[in-house]
């Protein structure tokens, strides 16, 4: 019982912490906006003027710092520890606990510093015969696009800057554009996602090609073929959502997920697009190049495309994988899990909290869902063996791609019949039930032994 209460308290603490963090993000955005406004006034000599442009510019700068450097980088770095700890939980181990700060292992978090220090201080050994420029460029090329992907993810809802504590007396409400926790609100939205995510392949394939190593080359070739194949299904899996929510902009997609179908049930992406969710999840997994899709790495066969990298160059590639997990979890949350809608008691929260704190709760909910998705990815990663090269292509071209295509046409047809999305929700619910039923039925069936009769027991002769 004590453990249970402790667990509840721990989770409450985590949620409260996430909400406080989100409140901090909004606060920083608002105040940096105000700071830029003051700076602009000081330069142009017009004190007391509120310029909307300066405020939204300042808010964007603040978002880059808070979302990319704090949220994404921290979660990417924390995932290195989380990977050890979560996998240890699954494997009846304790996990990393050797570094102690004042006698406490702190859940293994100090290993972050140790890892970083180790990576940075290691000797950088470079192979002979490498293509120097590409060899140096590859880690950056692997890292940068992944990082840039997060720019379009809306972490929090729009908020009038006048609602931010301390700014109410300085900015009248409704004068300037609302600020949101999103770095760039591009009209192209998801198209930007496709464009940038396809750039990530250059880093890995160039790393394989430039390091003058046969195993690295094999890894690079595997990476490029896998990532290019899975981009197709990755893109198609999102088309259904685009049609359903009639937008490419992630923020608008999240807003649209707040409307309700059938009374209280929200039009959340996973209900309307279950097939899209599954295909996107699998494809995103393949894009992160982690098990069961870790063929480019395949540490027991070809060791990986980064075999010739050492020190922080390797660290960058390593970190890119974790950041990719975080970023794709963010996109998954925004498109399929309702983004910053807390859903639970949403109406009550909206009525009883100030807009600032409601927005903070929303952003906290987003980060919470994102963490849940990262945890799911890690669970899968530690449970499943690796695919083989031909099986991975078969899975993409023969299963995921047709499923995504059918999903696009079914979604379009259903929306044509009933634009209110109610029919789509029904179809989605039926699909979920069908998938669950098939999973249960297959899970209960006896192990497939056709043609094998293996391990049948022969009494002595």
């Amino acid at each position, binding site marked *: 019982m004590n453990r249970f209460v402790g667990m509840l308290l721990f989770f409450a603490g985590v949620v409260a912490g996430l909400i406080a963090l989100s409140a901090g993000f909004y606060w920083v955005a608002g105040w940096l906006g105000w700071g830029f406004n003051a700076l602009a006034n000081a330069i142009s000599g017009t004190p007391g003027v509120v310029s909307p442009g300066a405020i939204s510019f300042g808010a964007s700068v603040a978002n880059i710092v808070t979302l990319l450097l704090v949220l994404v980088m921290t979660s990417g770095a924390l995932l290195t520890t989380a990977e050890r700890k979560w*996998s240890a939980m*699954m*494997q*009846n*181990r304790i996990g990393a606990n050797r570094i102690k700060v004042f006698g406490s292992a702190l859940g293994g978090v100090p290993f972050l510093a140790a890892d970083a220090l180790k990576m940075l201080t290691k000797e950088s050994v470079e192979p002979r015969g490498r293509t120097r420029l590409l060899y140096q460029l590859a880690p950056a090329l692997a890292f940068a696009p992944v990082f840039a992907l997060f720019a379009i993810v809306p972490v929090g809802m729009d908020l009038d800057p006048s609602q931010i504590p301390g700014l109410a007396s300085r900015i009248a409400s409704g004068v300037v554009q609302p600020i949101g926790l999103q770095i760039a609100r591009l009209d192209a939205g998801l198209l930007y996602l496709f464009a940038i995510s396809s750039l990530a392949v250059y880093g890995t394939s160039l790393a394989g090609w430039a390091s003058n190593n*046969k*195993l690295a080359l*094999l890894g690079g070739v595997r990476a490029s073929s896998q990532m290019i194949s899975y981009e197709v299904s990755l893109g198609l899996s999102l088309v259904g959502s685009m049609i359903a929510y009639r937008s490419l902009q992630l923020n608008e997609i999240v807003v649209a997920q707040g409307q309700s179908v059938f009374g209280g049930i929200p039009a959340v992406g996973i209900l309307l697009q279950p097939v899209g969710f599954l295909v996107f999840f699998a494809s995103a997994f393949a894009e992160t190049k982690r*098990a*069961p899709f*870790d*063929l480019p790495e*395949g*540490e*027991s*066969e*070809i*060791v990986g495309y980064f075999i010739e990298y050492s020190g922080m160059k390797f660290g960058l590639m390593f970190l890119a994988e974790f950041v990719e997990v975080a970023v794709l979890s963010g996109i998954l949350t925004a498109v399929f899990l309702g983004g910053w809608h807390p859903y639970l008691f949403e109406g009550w929260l909206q009525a009883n909290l100030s807009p600032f704190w409601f927005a903070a709760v929303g952003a906290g909910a987003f980060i919470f869902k994102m963490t849940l998705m990262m945890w799911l990815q890690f669970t899968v990663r*530690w*449970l*499943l*063996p*690796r*695919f*083989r*090269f*031909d*099986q991975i292509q078969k899975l993409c071209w023969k299963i995921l791609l047709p499923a995504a295509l059918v999903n696009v046409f079914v979604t379009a047809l259903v929306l044509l019949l009933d634009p209110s999305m109610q029919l789509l929700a029904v179809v989605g619910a039926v699909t979920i039930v069908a998938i669950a039923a098939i999973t249960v039925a297959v899970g209960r069936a006896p*192990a*497939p032994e056709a*043609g*094998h*009769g*293996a*391990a*049948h*027991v*022969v*009494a*002595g*002769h």
Partner: protein
Amino acid sequence: MTEGKGVGGIDTRATPGSAGAGLSAPQLGGPAAGPADGELEAPLRGKRMTVNLGPSHPATHGVTRLVVELDGENIEAMKIDIGYLHRGFEKSCENGTWTQVFPYTDRLNYVSSIMNNVGFALGVEKLCRLDIPDRAKYLRVITSEVHRICDHLTLVGAMGMELGAMTVFLYAIEARDLIYDRLAELVGARLTSNYARIGGVARDVPEGWIEKMTKTLDRTRDLVDEIDALLARNRIFIDRTRGTGKVSRELACELGFTGPCLRAAGEPYDIRKAAPYLVYDRLDFDIPVGSNGDNFDRYLMRIEEMRQSDKIIRQCFAQMEPGDIIVRDFRYALPPKPLVYGTIEGLMAHFKLVMEGIKVPAGEVYSYTEAANGELGFYIVSDGGGRPYKLGLRAPGWPMVAGLPYMLKGSLLADLIPTYDSINMIGGEVEQ
């Protein structure tokens, strides 16, 4: 295949002694593909890539060098280069007394060392025409089967790990570690457990050991069931292992496979049944037999054999009766310490055994037992002295390693991993 090429089409003359040197090229999967169909066709010939896996490579647990010639990702030819762990086992044995050979045998298959002890002890006893006490026989069977479980756990765990399922490996290691703890209580060592002696075993079981071992077996069985549930029902694992690394019953017999790899191919041959030694004829157990001879079958063999070994050990616990654990003949066994210190005969026997070794009658003998990987054979020649005159070893893993190029030709590079794992090459025994 061109003239002068050995197994897998690689010129083995360049490195004499490598697997398959001097053999004609293998015939695999029907007639060999002929030249291009039409005379006018001029197919573009892709360049082959020769990749060196090992000697230090995660897939070769131990040190083995696999030279693989790749066309894309397809294995066109392959050569195995062993010997990185060569210790001169056979020659070293000639320099020690018969008893001093036991520690060398521990290092053969270091995952299941007691089986090697037992195999060697049985060989020497055959030469001496020595019958050992019943309790010693039971203890030898118990420890051998415990080590068989240990060996198979290592294989299944490593196979899971190298296919990417790390969790399975740690479950297997948990069970193996419990077994190691029990063995340490019995024998004193975790890895190179040295238990058998000529004429019996070294120690009797400590008090309460049987109950603890039964509990350990319960836990191991649970873990094996869990591992089996994680792997045998896993679609990815089935796809990776089924139909890969296939070897037919005929080819397996021809190549000299024994043990689980032979039985996976459908040949029900197990020395414990075919020529029972120790007390195997008094025990009720089955031997699993596969039908396809692929990696999946080899995996299933291991899982089922662990369950059968579990059964054997429990039966032994029930049947075993108190009694001597080593013969009371001081020509073979060391006398107890009170006799050594108290009687002149005891002191003399002790001195003779330690300084000169056991006098084994002149003659030669081939003794074979069913080790974890197959038939473990000792060919022993004695000139009547205290040391082996000549000792030859038939390592169980050797024919399977030599068969790898036959099993892998034309398959994908990724198939090398489960195949290499499922034959369970242990460097210590193959390279002696």
